[in-house]
């Protein structure tokens, strides 16, 4: 009798060990099918840095021919502050006091239907300043990968036409579960 009970228990425990496995496997399958195929995944689950953060914008970026040298360095960062809250920290650092400095078309995007979909788009600028450090906190719908993209913007007024320098940047993406 004891042998029977023991064997039933062993079988039960054995079965128990296997029961969660299909569930985990299904979840992983669902996640994999929604994994973004465009962009870079962040190694840190709570922090994603800008892919094009740079010490110098001398190369790359959308630099207009007559206006090179207005932007000194740029950075974007996406933080997961816990729960459904994410935070953007962004910097555009000019090389001198500029008439207009900031971020053109900041986009909070989520991966949905195999593409990046804009959740929110906005721009923000400061005037007559050399730098603009910006922070924005947003509550998001869980279950998606999120990232920020932005165009760092700097403008200096001349006699007739303003000089403008822009620099595209995007963060790697984070899964907000």
């Amino acid at each position: 009798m004891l042998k029977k009970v023991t064997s039933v228990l062993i079988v039960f425990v054995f079965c128990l060990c296997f029961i969660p496995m299909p569930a985990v496997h299904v979840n992983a399958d669902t996640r994999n099918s929604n994994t973004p195929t465009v962009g870079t995944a962040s190694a840190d689950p709570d922090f994603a840095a800008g892919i094009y953060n740079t010490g110098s914008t001398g190369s790359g970026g959308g630099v207009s021919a007559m206006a090179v040298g207005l932007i000194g360095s740029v950075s974007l960062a996406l933080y997961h502050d816990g729960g459904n809250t994410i935070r953007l920290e962004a910097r555009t650092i000019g090389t001198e006091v500029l008439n207009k400095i900031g971020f053109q078309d900041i986009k909070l995007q989520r991966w949905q239907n195999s593409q990046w979909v804009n959740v929110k788009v906005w721009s923000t600028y400061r005037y007559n300043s050399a730098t603009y450090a910006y922070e924005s906190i947003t509550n998001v719908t869980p279950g998606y990968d999120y990232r920020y993209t932005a165009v760092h913007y700097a403008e200096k007024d001349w006699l007739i036409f303003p000089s403008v320098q822009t620099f595209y940047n995007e963060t790697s993406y984070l899964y907000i579960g």
Partner: protein
Amino acid sequence: MGSEGKKSENFKDIWNSTEFDREKITNQLLVEIYDEFRKSDEQMDCGLIQENMETLHWLAGEEYFDSVNTKEEIQKAKTRAKAKRPVYKKLAHSKIFKPAVAASLAIAMLLSANSILAYATGKDIFDRIVEIGNGYIGFNFSDSADPGSSYRMTDSNAICRTLKKDCAPCNLFPMLPQSLPQNFKIENFEPQKFKNSQTVSITLGDGKNSFMIYIERYSDRSHMPEIKIPDNEPSVKKIKIKGKDAYLTEISNKWTSIFQEGDYVYNFSSTLDYNRTVQILESVN
């Protein structure tokens, strides 16, 4: 006199003949007179005017009395005509008008070019005059060999103390330059607090040139930005800040540098020339 009288009679016969166009020759004589009137005093042929007038009188059957000094009368007539001219016409016909206009245009163009240069580089053309000699002016448009003492470097202890004092309440204790150009002042000081970092933006300058410092202090070093030096950047120069390697990049005649020390990331940007920028950066402590 007899031959002259005969010649005149012959001319009169021609004049009275139907084949001769009297109106044409009268007009011709008048045109010649007017042409002479238009000439300057020196070039005017008073003899021709007098001769033509005599001929016209004679052809009209009148006696020409040369009881007046023709040259003097013509001069008086010209003076009266000039007096009646409008002021702008007088100016336009003035001998110095054209050179004055040319000189004014040249000065206006020079000042415009100078304004653009001053706006673009912060240094006007007069700042760049290095030598005035006999018949020449020497300019120096090179930023690296800026002569004169307007950017003489000096200890910036007072500025440094003020900045450190202002930074302390923000929990920022950054390294700052100990040497700055003599006339530089604090143009902007702006601290900001974020969840994971504290920043301060400082602009030092004299209205023409500036040295900008952007300091970030991170509470979590794992989130500090990675400092990258572009591989293909042609104008990256290696310098030492506080004994550590740092890189200086030239972008459109401005020098930028990013330097990391402990929890701090420093962004420097300078519109000064290379030598002075390096001098400031090497004095950071």
